[in-house]
């Protein structure tokens, strides 16, 4: 529809104008939060594709983000920098001599993560449900062990330091918008319908000519590709990476995002990512000393995660469909909502 296209273009325009403004005036801290929101959005939207849209409960996005981060970081560091930081074991050839530009490293990050996802699909999708969860979780743990131990590739627990902060608002938000467009298009295509059919009833999907295995593999690979790209962005945002960044804890955060947003809704995943990144910062106060009603309270480390865990449990028990359920944003719905609200205001 023409109206919707114009509105979408206008919204993107406003977002770009906001980013331009933010880029010039916001503090480094605020810009970092905006970047984090974009990166979490990229992963959440595509993680939702496999978990929410296709209904295959993977717990492995941390592994793919790790693969992307390391790939991208190892490719942008100069040979001299690598030689200097690999002090336990020298870095293997050809990584020791390669150095490419940031965009190329991002593509490589996505491709490698996607390729590995594709390769492990065969064992992974032999099982379903909670077994799938455990196998993908196990894959994440194996990646964790590898990043810690393959010292001549990853520099082990020391990690990689001194990356150039390539990730600007333009990179993170540009790729975020690109990811959303690709994902929404995919979900609304025949491939997306096949994914949803597999989620709803695998036997009935196969009876209608849909190859469930390939459909799952497509969603898994697509999701891993973008998790890899997001990993590359993340590495060049925080400029220091080490295995401890990519534990199951990272997956847990993403799980909260897509569950609270509404499993199966791209819009929900976005809302969840924004709430999480923003809420995570807002809740930082509970871990630092603060004053409440005139009382000085000590900060409580770990309190944020207690709150997040409780939110996840309560969402599952009392509001299982999350904020959006499986609904998506549409301009029509937004306009309807707006006019209802307007009428209510007028009446009062």
């Amino acid at each position, binding site marked *: 529809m023409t109206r919707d296209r114009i509105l979408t273009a206008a919204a993107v325009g406003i977002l770009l104008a906001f980013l331009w403004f933010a880029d010039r005036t916001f503090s480094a801290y605020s810009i970092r939060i905006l970047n984090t929101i974009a990166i979490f959005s990229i992963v959440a939207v595509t993680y939702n594709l496999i978990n929410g849209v296709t209904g295959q409960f993977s717990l492995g996005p941390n592994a793919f983000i790790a693969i992307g981060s390391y790939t991208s970081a190892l490719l942008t560091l100069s040979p001299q920098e690598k030689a200097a930081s690999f002090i336990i074991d020298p870095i293997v050839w050809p990584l020791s001599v390669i150095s490419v530009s940031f965009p190329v490293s991002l593509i490589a990050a996505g491709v490698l993560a996607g390729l590995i996802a594709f390769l492990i699909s065969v064992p992974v999708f032999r099982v379903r449900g909670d077994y799938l969860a455990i196998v993908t979780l196990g894959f994440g743990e194996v990646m964790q062990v590898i990043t810690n131990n393959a010292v001549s590739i990853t520099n082990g627990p020391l990690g990689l330091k001194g990356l150039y902060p390539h990730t600007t608002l333009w990179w993170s938000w540009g790729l975020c918008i690109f990811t959303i467009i690709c994902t929404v298009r995919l979900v609304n295509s025949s491939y997306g319908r096949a994914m949803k059919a597999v989620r709803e009833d695998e036997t*009935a999907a196969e009876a209608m000519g849909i190859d469930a295995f390939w459909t799952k593999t497509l969603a898994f690979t697509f999701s891993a590709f973008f998790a890899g790209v997001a990993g590359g962005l993340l590495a060049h945002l925080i400029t220091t990476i080490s295995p401890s960044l990519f534990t199951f804890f990272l997956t847990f955060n993403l799980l909260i995002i897509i569950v609270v947003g509404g499993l199966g809704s791209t819009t929900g995943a976005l809302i969840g990512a924004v709430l999480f990144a923003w809420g995570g910062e807002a809740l930082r106060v509970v871990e630092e000393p603060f004053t409440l009603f005139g009382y000085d309270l000590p900060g409580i480390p770990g309190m944020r995660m207690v709150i997040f865990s409780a939110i996840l449990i309560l969402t599952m028990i009392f509001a299982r469909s999350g904020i959006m359920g499986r609904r998506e944003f549409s301009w029509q719905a937004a306009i309807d909502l707006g006019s209802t609200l307007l009428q209510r205001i007028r009446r009062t």
Partner: protein
Amino acid sequence: MSETLLRTEGLTVVFGGLVALSGLDLEIRRGEIVGLIGPNGAGKTTAFNAITGVVQPSSGRIFLGEEDITARPAPKIAAKGIARTFQQIRLYDDLTVIENVMVAGHSSVRYTFLEAVTGLGRFSADEKRISEYAEYLLELMGLSDVISAKASALPYGRQRKLEIARALALRPTVLLLDEPVAGMNPMETKGFADLLRRLHRELNLTIGLIDHDMGFVMNVCHKIKVIDHGVPIAWGTPNEIRTDQKVIAAYLGTAA
């Protein structure tokens, strides 16, 4: 006489020592409506499941035309043109009515994954074709008024019709219906029989069906196969079946 479309030879299915279906020879010719009947637990649904690749046959062969399709994966068999409905309705509950039908168009999609993501190439034309055909089928089944409703929101009878519309979207050469009139009252059943005849005529369908409603089966089928406890006991036209001593014994035997 027209050619044989779907044929099984000695189709046998054993589940952990239990013989669910034993030596079924079935032949469906182009344009026929063939009924598969028998008392509960006779193995009728098992036969459909084996033909459509949902369960693996223990022995026997299945041919679609000249091609041996025994134990091929379910999606391959569906793409070759055998569509089915299920005894217990299995729709994609959370999808809309038209999406349910469009899902079955997936095997005819020519655009690639990349064309889907970019929206380029054959994407628009193909989507238009699939959605238009889905709309046509929904109109044929009298479901045009609920196109954007969720499948789970439809009443039982209309869910049955939606399942058939979905199966038809595969553009099947053979359509297998598993108890299509179960749970319908006599009026609805009669209306459905008329609808089925219309579909058969308009879409040049070949149909295999299972049902317990003898009146309905005798009314719409050209040929009927009777099985009991997994074993085929009779084959013939409705009139021949009606007077067959073994069939009467099987039904009275289970009734008594």
